[in-house]
């Protein structure tokens, strides 16, 4: 019976990852909510909701990407990931020398991809909540062409103006939360911290 097997032999469970990720998420959400609140002049509750939604979205999409990529990696690189997950260290094989480069490039790519996901996520969320930055309600037919052009140009400028602080706020929020997470990771990887 598979259910009994699983209950008697749960094997190696990612409990530390779950606990640690919950902690990191809380830290990131609180920090980003503070930045969004200051930069975008949002309410306390609203900024918490926005920060929580985009962070959870980015995290879960990150997991999906990791699980998908891990399955198609070359075996040697996959073994290094296994080594890191299970034993918290890399081991000697053909990838050992290029690993620092791989890790740094992955981290930088993760930062920008996360930034893009968070920005897009915030735009989607605002659209979902019906708070569109640019009003797209059907407009009355305009007979004057120049008027329409003017309006379009004004809308574009307004759109940029409305867009820019948001992008900046998300960038700042992302930078702050990544810094905090990096610091926490470095702290935990010090031997002896938290008894690990």
């Amino acid at each position: 019976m598979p259910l009994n097997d699983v209950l008697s032999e749960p094997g190696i469970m990612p409990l530390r990852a779950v606990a640690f990720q919950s902690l990191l998420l809380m830290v990131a959400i609180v920090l980003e909510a503070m930045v969004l609140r200051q930069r975008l002049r949002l309410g306390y509750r609203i900024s918490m909701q926005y920060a929580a939604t985009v962070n959870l979205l980015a995290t879960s999409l990150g997991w999906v990407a990791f699980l998908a990529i891990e399955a198609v990696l070359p075996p040697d690189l996959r073994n290094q990931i296994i080594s890191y997950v299970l034993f918290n260290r890399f081991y000697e094989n053909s990838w050992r020398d290029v690993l620092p480069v791989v890790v740094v490039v992955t981290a930088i790519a993760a930062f920008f991809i996360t930034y893009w996901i968070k920005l897009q996520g915030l735009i989607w969320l605002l659209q979902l909540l019906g708070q569109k930055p640019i009003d797209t309600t059907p407009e009355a037919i305009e007979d004057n062409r120049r008027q329409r052009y003017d309006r379009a140009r004004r809308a574009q400028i307004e759109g940029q103006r409305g867009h820019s602080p948001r992008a900046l706020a998300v960038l700042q929020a992302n930078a702050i939360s990544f810094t905090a997470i990096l610091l926490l990771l470095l702290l935990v990887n010090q031997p002896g911290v938290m008894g690990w």
Partner: protein
Amino acid sequence: MVGFLRQTLEDLGKLLKPPRYFAWQTVIYISLFSWLMSLLARAVSATEFTVGLLATLSWICLALGVGWALEANKVRPFGIPIAPWVSGGIVCIFLFGSWGGRWLQPALVVWPLVSFAVVAVPSLVSWDFSLKKPQPFVRQQLALLFCLSLLFSSWFQFYFRIQAWVHDYPSLAADSVEHSAFVYRIPGQTTALSAGVTHLTVAEDLLREEVDNKPWPSVERWLLNLEGQRQLLRQQLHSQMSETSPLEDPLWQLDFQPSTNGDGYTLKLWAVWSGPAASPNGYYLEKTCQLMPISRAGLAPENASPGYSTTQWSNLTCDLETPRQAGHPRETQASG
């Protein structure tokens, strides 16, 4: 006593009897009735479709009824409304339970998403199956809940991915994971024996075929071509082991080194692990064997020449235990 019994019976009656037709008890009863009908249908050998339809109805009503009951009775441990999770769990057991085999994995991975659907569908679809647009507040809650359930689903998937690793590389489970920042093993579980032990046992059998119970001079000759024998032994071992664990097998390297010990030799057999390991320099398993010449005078014919009885035969005895050592056998030998 009688009063207590009557009170209990009244409570029980109140619990079982729906207060009105539109109540959770009604749904549970429909589920039970539908389940009984499906049993009946099976008994009178109705078509597969009828039985399936009745069973499906029964499961759906059970999920609805249990969720409703939990919600109606305000069962909220730690303030978390668990009704959608329980309903989603019942739906998942129903959807995947009939698969057999490894149904638990898809069921657990999909469970958070199904639970999200259980929450979302009532607020997105109205009673006449037309889409409706909920309040912005509800939409925000749903978006948050969807991301959360995707995260839970990913965690379950990560758990199963780790199990797949351990399935591919069984020796990982024999190592210590206490330094990991990701995983935790609940203490008290039986840990599997490292596959290196099997390698050493098989290698011992192969070695026995070569050097056990052979004339001593041929054994000495065999030992002259050490590197060739190593290659041969590795090839034979590989052809035997690669079926059981094809991914892990290349990470084990067999090695042995004889050293003189009195009249005979001490053979050290090593299974060197070159994969991920908890100790910084990896580890190896060691098996110690004694290869000794013994006189077999008894076998000599009666009228043999005097020199014949001194012909010596080889005898290989190996220890049962395979102690685990950190590092690499060649390096520790060089330094020690």
